């Protein structure tokens, strides 16, 4: 049976939400097309209870089998010289049809080298589509299509995994994942960590950046530049997977890696979104938010389209109303 490998990234000891989405997508494809889902952890030295907790979460999120490479060299963030060898070793052993990498930067770090080592196609910022094909009287079959924007945004590149006859390495968006539904526990298969290819290489990672959440957020709100007070007032009311980014922060390095599923563009935003958030997938939804002048009357009429303060205040009010609504 074919296999799908989902790479799981940890931050501060927890599975990232984009990794849960990668697992959910692997499960969706496996349920349709028939495949075994492998979750791969690359971690520093963990105690058994911690490893069991992570494996339990991964299996409940959709993994059939959980693989783990644990070594001191893997304690830092995913980088090809330290983590790429493990991925290549697992890929060589499993020969997966698909390798799914979560949003947040690991696809750019690990994907290209892995694709070259595997002789695979590489698609970053990809969406997965499943198409049912009826073959009466035989059971229906499913086509697995991977789709991404060309960077020029003048068309999609689409790969039919069944037709390609090669594996595909894909970086995904930060999308939704269902509540844990699978088996709550899967046995962890510990795999050996290959010797570092560049033994003289050393890595010292700094503290998490303040904007780190942007690259893993599921929803991004894009607004004009606003005061810190207005931003804080909105941020207090936003769901945890939603980030507010103003155009004053348009050159944030983490924004380049962001692959949110939804982007809300407020009226005060004027810069071209895709020039600053280049990793939007074909499935991403861009929503232009506008004032409903017929309902909001004078307040809305006074709001200028270039006034970010009004935009953020209007969204705070709308969120408060929506929370109170039955």
């Amino acid at each position, binding site marked *: 049976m074919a296999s799908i490998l989902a790479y799981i*990234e940890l*931050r501060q000891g927890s599975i990232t939400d984009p990794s849960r989405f990668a697992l959910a997508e692997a499960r969706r494809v496996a349920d349709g097309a028939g495949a075994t889902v492998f979750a791969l952890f690359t971690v520093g030295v963990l105690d058994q209870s911690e490893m069991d907790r992570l494996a339990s979460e991964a299996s409940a999120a959709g993994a059939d089998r959980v693989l783990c490479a644990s070594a001191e060299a893997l304690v*830092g963030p*995913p*980088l*090809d*010289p330290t983590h790429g060898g493990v991925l290549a070793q697992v890929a060589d052993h499993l020969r997966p049809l698909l390798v799914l990498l979560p949003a*947040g*930067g690991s696809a*750019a*770090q690990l994907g*290209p*080298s892995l694709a*070259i080592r595997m002789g695979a196609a590489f*698609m*970053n910022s990809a969406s997965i589509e499943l198409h049912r094909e009826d073959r009466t009287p035989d059971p229906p079959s499913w086509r697995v299509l991977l789709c991404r*924007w*060309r*960077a*020029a945004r003048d*068309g*999609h590149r*689409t790969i*039919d995994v069944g037709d390609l006859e*090669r594996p595909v390495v894909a970086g995904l968006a930060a999308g939704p994942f269902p509540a844990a539904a699978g088996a709550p526990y899967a046995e962890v298969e510990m795999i050996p960590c290959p010797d570092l290819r*560049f033994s003289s*290489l*050393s*890595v010292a*990672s*700094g503290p998490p*950046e303040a904007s*780190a959440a942007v*690259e893993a957020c599921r929803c991004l709100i894009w607004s004009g530049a606003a005061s810190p007070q207005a931003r804080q007032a909105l941020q207090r009311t*936003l*769901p945890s997977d939603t980030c507010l980014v103003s155009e004053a922060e*348009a050159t944030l*390095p*983490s*924004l380049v*890696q962001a692959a949110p599923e*939804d982007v*809300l563009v407020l009226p005060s935003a004027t810069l071209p979104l*895709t*020039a*600053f958030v*280049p990793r939007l997938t*074909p499935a*991403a939804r861009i*929503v232009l938010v506008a*004032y*409903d002048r017929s309902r*909001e009357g004078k307040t809305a009429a006074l709001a200028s389209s270039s006034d970010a303060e009004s935009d953020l205040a*209007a*969204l705070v009010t*709308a*969120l408060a*109303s*929506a*929370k109170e609504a039955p």
Partner: protein
Amino acid sequence: MIILVCVEPAGLSAASRAALRVACDTGPSVRVVVASAGSAQQFRKSPTLDPPGPIERIVRLQESALGDANCDTTAMLLAEIARHVKAQVVLAGEQSDAEGQGLVAAGIANHLHAPYLAGVAAVAATDRPDRVEVTSRSGGCLCRVISPAPVVTAVPPLGRTAETPTTDVTLPKVEVLSLADLGVEASRLVRRPDLRGTLVSTPGQVVRNTTFDQAARLLLRR
């Protein structure tokens, strides 16, 4: 320290501009070489190089057979150029403005048997000539990597407003290289299968309109 910056033959992408900026920000003791590989036809379309700082050499591998080269062949030739100029650091854009997959830099590393680092924000010399310091962004934090040289690095694009304004910089004369200069047999220019997928034209990203109330409900419902 010699830094090779690999750029596209037909115009610089936003990521290549960022790579040039990283190279030129490294300091005065660094020698920056810019290289590209393509066909003469591609170079005719090339706009003026607009570097953010001093560049010591510009080399071009010009070969008619490279007009439709895939990324693996391009990577192999850029790796040979890196050997030719004795580069300790190779910088390339993390994605082109056209296909945007970032495979060339990883391909160069594969051909050079060198470490590959993406998300690179800075490079610096160390007190040892065979070691290079690379600052890379991964896992939500900045990592300081001391790597053996040569190291191949990929630089993500900068947002549009961060591009360097046009400046008057005197550029060195372009050195045109041939395959023979690099010691590459023409038989190595083998086309590999194109794995980019089928191109499907689309009207653009789907955009929909909503009110603040609807946006708030959407945020809470997800």
